[in-house]
């Protein structure tokens, strides 16, 4: 296994494994609440943050994190105060941030390579400081999901019922949105802004077709996420292809297998 002798590969695999672990953990609660598009909207907000960061010579992931947190907060406020329906708020935020990103990029006469590494991911060029940011955010996201697992489960089951059980639904939703932003930011270098939504949603879709029980579904989604990320990066190294693409394609492979398996199981149980 000569690939472990390269520092950049070790960093890539650690970063990839963390993203594969956490994106589906957050994603499960987004999918169950029919909010999976929030990942895409926040990814474009992160792109805006990166563009502003590059133009102003600030640390792009930090600007991206600030932007996604602010956007997540705004989306939740628009929805809770019923100023805009949830899906419309997501669309407005997506196009608004994308437009700002385009304007900033044109003002700075393009960033070519740097911007491309955020758009399409560039897991092999993760620096030690990038990795520390990924590790830090991963700890925060993991702690949130672990500590508020019950609240997240209840809120995704039924919001009115969660309220009458004593769960502070609006606070949990807000925290979920902000941490989705954090997850997007930490996933950005691995799979890129354009594909980050896939890693949030696809392992969850695969797991929902196989597992029984919320806990089992959570664990299986995380396992599929890690397998996709690590498998995709190793494949990218040997086949000399873009890692973001191979990571997402492997996760889609899992989804296809899971769908086939669940289809066959339903056929068999109906026949028997």
């Amino acid at each position, binding site marked *: 296994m000569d690939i472990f002798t390269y520092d950049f590969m070790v960093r890539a695999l650690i970063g990839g494994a963390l993203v594969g672990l956490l994106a589906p953990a957050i994603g499960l609660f987004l999918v169950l609440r029919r909010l999976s598009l929030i990942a895409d909207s926040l990814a474009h907000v992160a792109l805006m943050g990166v563009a502003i960061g590059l133009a102003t010579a600030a640390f792009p992931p930090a600007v991206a994190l600030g932007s996604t947190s602010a956007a997540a907060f705004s989306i939740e406020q628009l929805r809770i105060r019923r100023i805009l329906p949830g899906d419309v708020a997501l669309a407005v935020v997506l196009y608004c941030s994308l437009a700002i990103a385009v304007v900033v990029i044109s003002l700075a006469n393009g960033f070519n390579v740097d911007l491309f590494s955020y758009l399409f991911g560039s897991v092999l060029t993760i620096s030690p400081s990038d990795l520390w940011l990924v590790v830090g955010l991963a700890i925060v996201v993991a702690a949130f999901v672990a500590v508020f*697992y*019950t609240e997240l489960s209840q809120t995704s*089951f*039924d*919001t009115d019922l969660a309220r*009458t*059980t*004593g769960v502070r639904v609006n606070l949990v939703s807000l925290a979920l949105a902000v941490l989705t932003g954090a997850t997007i930011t930490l996933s950005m270098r691995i799979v890129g802004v354009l594909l980050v939504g896939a890693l949030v949603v696809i392992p969850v879709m695969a797991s929902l077709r196989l597992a029984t029980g919320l*806990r089992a579904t959570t664990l299986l989604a995380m396992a599929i996420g890690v397998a996709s990320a690590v498998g995709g990066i190793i494949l990218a190294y040997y086949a000399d292809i873009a890692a973001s693409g191979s990571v997402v394609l492997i996760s889609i492979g899992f989804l296809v297998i899971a769908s086939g398996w669940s289809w066959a199981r339903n056929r068999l149980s109906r026949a028997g």
Partner: protein
Amino acid sequence: MKDATNKGNGLVPQGGAPYLEFRDVLFAYGAHTVVENLTLKVERGEFAAILGPNGSGKTTLLKLALGLLTPSRGEVLIIGSPPEKFREWGRVGYVPQRLDSSQADYPATAFEVVAQGLYRGPDPLAFLRLTSNAKVTSALGTVGVADLERKKFSALSVGQRQRVMLARALVREPDLLVLDEPVAGVDIAAEERFYALLRRLNRERGITIILVTHDIGATMSEATTVACINRTLVFHGPAHAITHHELSALYGIPMEVLLHNALHEHR
């Protein structure tokens, strides 16, 4: 001090504030008034059926009671407090009519759904801990679906799901049980068993029950009091005191038709 909440009311039994009280409540969505001039009390120990035709404001009444909606005017009190200040949600079990997740293939098992009812605040170890629990097993046993504990909730029949939701409410060991059309879509035999179970919980465990339904026949025999709602309170009193006249006024059709339908439905 103990009787401060009871002044001006000779009907309150010992044990403090009514479990649910509406004082001249008005609720409107924009220009559309859903309930108005609504004054109603449910005392501790009652099995109160709230009856009314579709669109009469029954579900709105429950949502107001649980603080899920805020009255446009008037006052709502649940066990003596306005819902927004009420902190003892552990005393209340709620069985909603429909769930946000009912269309999705929500992955939780019946066990996991019922265990949600045990919620008492953030628990960092919940993810590691919740694999079995004697209270959950016992609640599923009480409602007669102990064998479904490891089954996927979303794969159960409508009637089985309603029982699991009742178990989720009971596992909280509530003083007050609030149910919204719990037998909608359930066959007659299952419906009768469900009502009999509610009556037993009311009598044996002393749980106060507020049941919203449009089903006249069953509630007449099981409930202790009936409140008829059609935008406002039409009748409120013991179940046996309700007259054909009031029911006809409520539904706008002659009572013979209603009773015939009720009997027919329950055959």
